[in-house]
């Protein structure tokens, strides 16, 4: 079953995404860290595949992802692991080959066991407020603009 995704701003530099999954924590951790699993879900919709997914899961190790569209377009990103607690927590840097926000981000992915599943929290820490705001002006969840009909629907479904 599909659970609602929460996206919010934290302070001036961070975005926090929270999502629940109906699976044990160890399995969710595998899905985030094993290339053969990651290739099956991260960014692989709408004609995109992930031909490159290299993960050296240790502190100081690097990761590298490349996505390719059926039209031939490519998008790559990667970073360095800063902290790893197996099955529980990963901290890594993130930088896109063609940056769409300035600088680098520090991504903390935390998994917490909850009744019947796993709560996944992804903290995205940017170098500047401008970069963060560029990725998401999160208090926009209050419903500004016509693009927000989808959000309203989401909130209704959460009541």
């Amino acid at each position, binding site marked *: 079953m*599909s659970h609602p995704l929460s996206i919010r701003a934290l302070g001036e530099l961070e975005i926090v995404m929270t999502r629940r*999954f*109906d699976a044990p924590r160890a399995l969710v951790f595998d899905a985030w860290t094993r290339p053969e699993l990651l290739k099956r879900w991260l960014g692989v919709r709408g004609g995109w595949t992930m031909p490159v997914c290299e993960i050296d899961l240790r502190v100081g190790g690097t990761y590298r992802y490349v996505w390719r569209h059926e039209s031939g377009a490519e998008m790559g990103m990667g970073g360095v692991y800063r902290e790893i607690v197996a099955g529980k927590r990963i901290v890594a840097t993130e930088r896109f080959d063609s940056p769409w926000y300035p600088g680098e981000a520090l991504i903390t992915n935390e998994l917490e066991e909850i009744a019947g599943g796993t709560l996944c929290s992804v903290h995205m820490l940017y170098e500047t407020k401008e970069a963060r*705001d560029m990725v*998401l*002006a999160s208090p926009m969840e209050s419903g*500004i603009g016509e*693009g*927000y009909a989808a959000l309203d629907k989401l909130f209704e479904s959460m009541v």
Partner: protein
Amino acid sequence: MVAADSLSKTLFALADPTRRAMVARLREGTATVKELAAPFEMSAPSITKHLKVLERAGLIERGREAQWRPCTLRPERLREAAEWIERFRELWEGNFQSLDALLDTLQTQPRKKK
């Protein structure tokens, strides 16, 4: 990246609650500075500063007439920003739905030995 630059300005302008409240008010129609300032306990210079940020981001237009300088919302920029954020959300909602499906598969099928 001109487009991203203007988007960045828009998102920055909207990241502040006072400015968001002003934008919300302007969705109902053109307003004078005095009308926009009414809900806030804020000095006139602070109000002016907020309006300048909104104007620079292309979110509002200010009339030239007299000292009222009525403010009008320019919805194009707002739509652009909303679409961007919507794409971010859609991207991750899509990713996580795929992950749901994968986790389901992994739990119902016996895991293959490698």
